């Protein structure tokens, strides 16, 4: 009896953590795993969703997208858009964070700047897209100002020209995304002990030396974490590109998200769209694993 009681108690103790976890496991299973597995399943079917009896397609849809030059163009545009965005988010975020952390700026002005710099973060992607469409339209403010100061001789169709469209959407995304870096780095800057800088001052270090040898190394964990997260998020940006250019002109701003959307809702080729979505998933998964490994290593 005592042994029975003991084993019952042991079982209860072993099961208890799983019971506590079960609500979140069910939610994760239903909201994340199930859709993911379903989409992976669709990518191996012919006429997925559209037919009640879809047949097995093997790797046909993966072959189709890998043979499509537009897919490779989309992949390249996604990489360009993401890398440039992350680099500039980081650079601008760092400059503004240093500015807001500096004692040389008047505290009132600093508070005003703090509000101004964070503004882009408060807008939704749709509002940002509309703002930049209006600013960058051929008869918009940007062209007018640039023509007045003599930078350009004629109106530039920023979003409508294949030469400038990708740079224009990247610019809009950089403007929208730097506050995340700025806020995170500002928090990091405020956590760096003053002693380091005082010691550097005694040693006669110059401002740029303090930046390179104290500030940046101290901020490195934040920089890497936020950069990785930003890379993952920016890779999946859809509304900004969709509303500003729709992936055009021609295919000059087609990224993986717009490419997949068009396959699904313009071509109604949900099988190929699923294959494309799985490719995005794999890329994101690779980055996520990298991020987790980095976090563990820390």
């Amino acid at each position, binding site marked *: 009896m005592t042994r029975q009681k003991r084993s019952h108690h042991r079982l209860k103790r072993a099961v208890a953590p799983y019971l506590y976890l079960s609500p979140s496991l069910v939610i994760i299973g239903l909201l994340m795993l199930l859709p993911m597995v379903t989409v992976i399943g669709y990518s191996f079917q012919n006429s997925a*969703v*559209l*037919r*009640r009896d879809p047949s097995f397609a093997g790797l046909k849809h993966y072959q189709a997208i890998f043979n499509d030059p537009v897919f490779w163009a989309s992949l390249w545009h996604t990489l360009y858009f993401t890398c440039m965005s992350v680099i500039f988010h980081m650079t601008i975020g760092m400059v503004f964070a240093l500015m807001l952390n500096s004692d040389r700026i008047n505290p009132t002005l600093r508070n005003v700047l703090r509000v101004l710099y964070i503004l882009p973060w408060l807008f939704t992607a749709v509002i940002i897209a509309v703002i930049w*469409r209006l600013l960058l*339209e*051929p*008869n918009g403010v940007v062209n007018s100002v640039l023509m007045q100061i003599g930078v350009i001789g004629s*109106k530039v*169709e920023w*979003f*409508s*020209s*294949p030469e400038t*469209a990708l740079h224009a959407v990247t610019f809009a995304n950089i403007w929208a995304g730097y506050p995340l870096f700025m806020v995170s780095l500002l928090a990091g800057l405020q956590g760096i002990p003053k002693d380091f800088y005082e010691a550097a001052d005694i040693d006669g270090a110059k401002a740029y030396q303090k930046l390179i040898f104290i500030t940046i190394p101290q901020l490195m964990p934040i920089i890497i974490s936020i950069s990785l997260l930003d890379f993952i998020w920016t890779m999946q940006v859809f509304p900004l590109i*969709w*509303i*500003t*250019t*729709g*992936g*055009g*002109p*021609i*295919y000059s701003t087609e990224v993986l998200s717009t490419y997949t959307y*068009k396959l699904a*809702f*313009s*071509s*109604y080729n949900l099988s190929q769209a699923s294959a494309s979505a799985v490719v995005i998933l794999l890329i994101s998964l690779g980055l996520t694993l990298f991020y987790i490994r980095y976090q563990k290593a820390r």
Partner: protein
Amino acid sequence: MMFRIKPAMLKMAAAAWLLGATSAMADTTLEFTQWWEPELPAGSLRKIMDEFEAANPGIKVTLVSGPYATTRDQISVGAATGTLSDIVGLDGAWVNNLNAQNALADMNPMMDASGFDKSQVADIVKVDGKAVMFPVASFVYPVFVNLDLAAQAGVTKLPSTRAEFLEAAKKMTHADKNQYGWVLPLSLQTPSGVQNDMMSWVWASGQSMMADGKPALEGKPVVDMLTFVKSLNDAGTISPGIATKTEQEKVEEFVNNRVGMMIDSLAHVNLIRERNPKLNFDLIPVPVVDGYTGKRGLPYASWGIGISAGSKHQEEAWKLVQYLMSEKVNAKLVSLANAFPGNVNAKPDFVTSDKAFGKAFEIFKTGYLANEFTGLPVAEDLMTQFDVQAQKMLAGEQSPEQAAAAAQKGWMAKF
């Protein structure tokens, strides 16, 4: 006390169940999915349904309403999962896909069985010989002309041919004042500009982009249209930003006196008046190729209606379709929607009370409805493909012939 209440409660529950069951047995409830209700004055579609229910005792109609895009997705999924509503609002661009899924009922046998007069309807959309859709209300696309800009430019006679249109567009263009003769929205986000603003030139002249049910984009009609659009672009008469311009922006530019002419839906007349009450504009048919004197094709978008192949109440559903297509009800519905009727005998009230609509109704009556994208497979995808080739042509990367050939190749893959 408990023993007294329980039997009483049971009796009440039984009576309620019996009442519910008998009424459920007596009534057939039809589900009608569409995007029309949000676009009509509040409560007006429900009122028409109430009148139908009063005229057809035993049939109830439940309206499932949502925005256009949501309805489209809902119908696609419903067709795949066999949960499509009994009656569905349709866009002509969807019917081919839905027919491929065997989701739409053939209304031919229903028409024959009920002795339906086919001559009273403006169009019956058929796929593989099956009558799958009736256009209930049509929104035609004439050319809107800013009369003040035309007068300032010395355009005294409104254009009737392509050559006259080019001349008028050139005269109305003053790039230094941000003023252009024409506006062409070719955003890939909504590639309907291909249908409304490009192919409409082909249909207006009684021509076709198809031959024997297959694309014929390399034929003279489409190549000539592309050449014409290119000539307008080369002359600098098209408002800049073509490749990302949407239909809403097109209307906005017209409202703000920035373009002299645009092809647009008649449904926007009230919107244009609201946005700029002082705007002095007129409507003309889409100009034709020089020398063409035949009937003009009038591009249109429609609110179509069809019956689900899986519906268990097809007989009752057909009664509702007939009701909406009948002369008086159709006239009432299209009057509310500012659209043209699906029943040729119906006359909406706005055509007598409003000069612009009256003029458009004359254009409508003297021409014929033309939209060859209706019934084509993945119509939106076809428009996107054509759009990309047109953009390449306008960017100077290829000739009209090359654009037509590239689009033809892409389209053939979809057929």
